[in-house]
């Protein structure tokens, strides 16, 4: 009897969690629909978009720089012994470049960006919600969704591809440093090896994905913050769950977009 009641209890908790999850997914979807309903119509808050792009870019630049550099460095260091064992040491620059350009650069930059920015947006909008600042905007006949959400989502969507390109170049430099230290390769040779292996078409899928990743970071952070309740506890929860949900969605969309972009550009 006790086992049966415990099982029922577990099933009911799982059911509740699943319901919450699907409610959240539906909420994010409807929030995205609202975004597209508002983004094309005036007033256009260009100054606010530029301000957010500046802030997001500057705030995340140090951590993106370190991450980008280390991705390339570690990838080259770890792959080198295996590649040499199979007599493919000369393909190492090309392998590092392809991995960083097509997959590691975009995805890891997006995950770092999600951790830094999505939580910030969730916390900022959440505290504006609980201190009635969003209500104050609404009562002043100002559309808070347009001013707070549309501007942030657009800023994230536009700035992440730029940060990714920057992270990719630093990753390639990290790869060069690792190979230079072990094989004393010249920079010219390294660049030539990359140019032989990587085509411009390899850049496109990776960069196209980052527009989607930037949108995910902005929309999830804004959704969680904008719908915060339960005071300061709710703000903390919005901040944490923004990171978890946006990271998860980035990985899921990476899988889907990876398949689509490869079939489109292969």
């Amino acid at each position: 009897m006790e086992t049966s009641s415990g099982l029922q209890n577990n099933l009911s908790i799982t059911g509740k969690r699943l319901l919450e999850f699907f409610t959240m997914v539906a909420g994010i979807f409807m929030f995205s629909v609202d975004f597209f309903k508002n983004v094309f119509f005036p007033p256009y808050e260009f100054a606010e978009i530029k301000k957010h792009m500046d802030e997001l870019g500057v705030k995340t630049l140090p951590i993106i720089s370190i991450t980008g550099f280390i991705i390339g460095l570690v990838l080259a260091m770890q792959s080198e012994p295996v590649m040499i064992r199979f007599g493919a040491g000369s393909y190492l620059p090309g392998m590092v470049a392809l991995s960083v350009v097509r997959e590691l650069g975009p995805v890891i930059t997006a995950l770092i960006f999600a951790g830094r920015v999505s939580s910030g947006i969730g916390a900022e909008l959440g505290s504006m919600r609980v201190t009635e600042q969003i209500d104050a905007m609404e009562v002043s006949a100002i559309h808070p969704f347009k001013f707070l959400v549309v501007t942030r989502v657009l800023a994230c969507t536009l700035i992440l591809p730029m940060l990714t390109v920057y992270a990719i170049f630093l990753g390639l430099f990290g790869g060069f440093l690792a190979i230079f230290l072990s094989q004393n390769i010249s920079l010219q040779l390294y660049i030539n090896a990359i140019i032989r292996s990587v085509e411009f078409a390899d850049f496109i899928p990776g960069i196209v994905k980052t527009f989607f990743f930037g949108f995910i970071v902005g929309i999830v952070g804004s959704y969680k913050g904008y719908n915060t309740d339960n005071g300061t506890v709710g703000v903390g929860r919005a901040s944490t769950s923004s990171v978890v949900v946006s990271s998860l969605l980035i990985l899921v969309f990476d899988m889907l977009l990876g398949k689509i972009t490869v079939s489109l550009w292969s």
Partner: protein
Amino acid sequence: MIEVEIKNLSKSFGDLVVLDNISLNIQEQENVVVFGRSGSGKSVLLKCIVRLMEPDSGDILIEGQNIRNVSLKKLNELRKYIGFLFQSAALYDSMSVRENLEFPLIRNFNFSPAERERKIKDVLEKVSLEDSIDKMPAELSGGMKKRIGLARTIITEPRLILYDEPTTGLDPITSKEISQLIVELQKDLHTTSIIVTHDLICAKIIATHAVVLKDGKIRYEGNLEKLTSNGDPFLKDFFSNEILEVKNGRI
């Protein structure tokens, strides 16, 4: 000047009935004070009036227009002439005092930069905080925040102002100053005002009419003097502490 008519307004949260079939008429240039215990639905009433909350049933007519039926565009046209002072002042944290004040002016009206500057200086002078123009909200005390909140509320020269506990959390002197400021503003701008408060001293300075909410209904409506001398056990109990404070020379 705006007339507000509330007809059979009800609002519940789950099983909890907060407003139960409330009807109230507020005349032009009247200052109506709404009393009630914490959780009695005073703030909910204010939020329903500006449609920050949707009532379950009933009508709210502002200048003869039922705000429950108007489009968002029309509602925002009405909101341009309604001021709302939040209990926490709700200043925008990321903006300076100047930016807080010019925010509604830039977005809703076509004032030139010089006109905006003059308006900002005028309202700051009214609330005696001219020196705080470039400060951030985090640098202001509670009383200063309330004053800036009030300045932001009146900068658009609204015809209806809703005050949600304008003196809560302030010392008696600041509280009295804010109350007197509200009366002066009412005289200057000829506004209609609805003030939610627990503060009898504030009410005595401001009110031309009073309403007491209890259990979701209007328990008393009328003159403030009669309200405080009413023999109703709830009203006697409600105002006893406040009266003690007045007798002890708080004014």
